[in-house]
């Protein structure tokens, strides 16, 4: 068994385009303001928390592969560049980087635009849009931008699969197939994802962005955080309810301690949150619920939970942090990270 460390973190969220902005919003503890999102055919707009536009166009957007890429790709690239900044500054460029991109809704903006064009007249539907609709597009663009990604995959599922992505990255490192592995969770928002969420839970507010963990085996590359455990996958089924799955996940993560943070997925709905609340009802330690501040980021939300947990540990606020992911329709899974001495070179 190898030890797996976190070499870097990245985040794009409605709070801004880096981890510092995410940290600031979470520290403040107040829900971010919402923006109206026009819903065709409805007088009243939907509400969303969108990623703010940058005052200055980031340099990476000059890359030819990103000229037509959709917002989700921009978020993925920005988080990846932030998460690998330390590695790229210190590492041999020939080192092999793995990439796992996790998505739930994926490239919805171009999918909607392309399907709308198809419904109007398929003969004139844009050939430029279609390739950008596939789940694999963000990973492909990122691989082209970074240039040293040797192994890549895109996983689709409910937000709890983000930790399966982390587990896969750890596996690739253990098997020595890569020297570092980026695990990214990302989503983009538009009226259709907001509409779909509204149909499932009226009180939820859609948001967008991405979060990334860069994993490594080399302790010298560590940013002060080590992956300690990822629980089993507890898949929902006719015999295993969401409540039971959440409890089983909690059972594998152990008891609370006053110096350990719980970063959970509790949002704004007592109905949706009930299984996770019940699973952690006896938790007496500090707790952070990013969804209450940022909104429903789907896969990006799961990634932000992990980023926030690791950031709190890396910053010395806590000696360890647990992450609880109770997904919407697939599984519950949890993880634990702990502090290690930060390597001086990073």
């Amino acid at each position, binding site marked *: 068994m190898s030890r797996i460390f976190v070499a870097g973190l990245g985040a794009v969220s409605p709070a801004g385009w880096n981890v510092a902005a995410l940290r600031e919003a979470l520290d403040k503890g107040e829900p971010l303001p919402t923006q109206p999102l026009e819903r065709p*055919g409805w007088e009243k707009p939907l509400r969303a928390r969108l990623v703010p536009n940058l005052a200055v166009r980031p340099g990476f957007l000059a890359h030819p592969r990103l000229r037509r890429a959709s917002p989700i790709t921009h978020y993925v690239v920005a988080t990846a560049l932030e998460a690998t900044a330390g590695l790229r500054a210190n590492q041999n460029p020939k080192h092999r980087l793995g990439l796992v991109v996790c998505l739930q809704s994926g490239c919805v903006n171009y999918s909607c635009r392309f399907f*709308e064009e198809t419904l109007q007249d398929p003969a004139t*539907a844009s050939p430029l849009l279609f390739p950008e609709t596939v789940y694999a597009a963000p990973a492909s663009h990122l691989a082209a931008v970074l240039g040293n990604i*040797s192994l890549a995959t895109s996983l689709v*599922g409910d937000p709890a699969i983000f930790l399966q992505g982390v587990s896969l990255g750890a596996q690739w490192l253990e098997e020595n197939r890569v020297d570092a592995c980026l695990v990214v969770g990302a989503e983009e928002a538009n009226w259709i994802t907001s509409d779909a969420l509204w149909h499932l839970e009226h009180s939820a507010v859609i948001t967008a962005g991405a979060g990334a963990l860069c994993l490594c085996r080399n302790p010298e590359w560590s940013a002060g955080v080590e992956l300690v455990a990822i629980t089993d996958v507890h898949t929902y*089924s006719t015999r295993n309810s969401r409540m039971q799955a959440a409890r089983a996940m909690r059972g594998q993560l152990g008891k609370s301690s006053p110096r350990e943070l719980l970063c959970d997925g509790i949002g704004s709905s007592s109905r949706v949150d009930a299984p996770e609340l019940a699973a952690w009802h006896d938790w007496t330690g500090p707790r952070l619920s990013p969804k209450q501040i940022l909104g429903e980021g789907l896969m990006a939300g799961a990634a932000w939970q992990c980023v926030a947990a690791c950031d709190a540990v890396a910053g010395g606020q806590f000696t360890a942090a647990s992450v609880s992911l109770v997904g919407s329709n697939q599984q519950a899974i949890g993880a634990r990270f702990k502090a290690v001495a930060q390597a001086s070179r990073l």
Partner: protein
Amino acid sequence: MLFPTTTPPQTPRVVITGAGIITALGAGWKSNAEGFRTGRTAFRPVTLFDVSRQRAKQAAEVDLPAVLPQTGLGARQIARLDRADSLLLLAAHEAWRQSGWEPAENLPLVLGTTAGGMSFGEDYFRQAVQTPRNHRRQPTRAVNYQPQVQARMILDALDCNGPITIVSNACASGSNAIGHAWELICYGRAERALAGGYDALCGMVFSGFDALQALSTTICRPFDARRDGLALGEGAAVIALETLESARRRGAVILGELIGYGTAIDQHHLTQPHPQGNTTLTVMKQACATAGVTPDDIDYINAHGTGTVLNDSSEALAISHWAGRRAATLPVSSTKANIGHLLGAAGAVEAVICLMTLREQWLPPETMFETPDPACNFPVVHKLQDARVNVVLSNSFGFGGVNASLIFRRWA
């Protein structure tokens, strides 16, 4: 726990004890084996959606059976199944029945798909824009659109539970799913796993390939100098993988052995392969290295062979470079000539075709193939051909650049 884990002291051999397949050639091993052996093609005018304003008019549609097999699904679940669900269920049920496995609580299910429940997504969008105040069935569509919900349906149908992994690396998804399941077993994460791929034809995807002018308006002829594009199809395939020890313990019938897997990403372009097939070369080498074989040991290649100008020339160059002198006698064909490109299902369906060649000792011909592309310095199988087949390699490549190769060995 998913982490930390322990790696077994010795890498287990992984065998296939169940295979399910449904394509436009039919449902099940027997009808597909007969179709592929004789080189039957299954294209016809599209009936599932309107293609009157598209360049291409044909695809390989599946005739779904009127009655689905008896499974653990209830009437309400069955009523909600869409076309992709049904394809997946039929393939999974056949593989499950053939494997002789019992229901289990920790069975990994690894599936590849590009579109998942796209028909639900299309219906959702249409209703949302055409009758925006009508909310009927929209919550159900919003949920069932998601591929993990389809995967859960399969586990329910088989009375199982276990971790679900959905791989979406475009047209390499099916091969990557099987490769991922193989790795789960090789590295001691599971003793057995169910893996495969599925995709149903849908208007949006057809329109996408048509807009790219990637669809043939004549005949799909992979590796032919006159090729003018791919043809779309639909289907699903699922295989049951387990350690050799587990299969022997149960006295299971072994259909073949999965001995090698390679995967990497081509950074050249979102939709076009590197002209020299660099990444294809890499994954074929990787697969051979993990299998412990050389090109001389390979008896047949089931190529990705879409029938597009760019894919086939790039793949042909890679095969030629990789195989060296062996290329001159190495039989290659693409079964996309028979059933079209099945996208997320392609790699899994082609894996089952490879098992057929190993079990039944024939090579699938491209009967429409006439004039070899100059880049092909290998023989393209185009006539009915019995052959001695011990080791076969299957290639799959996807939009986005993920390439994958699988190597199977005959079990005798």
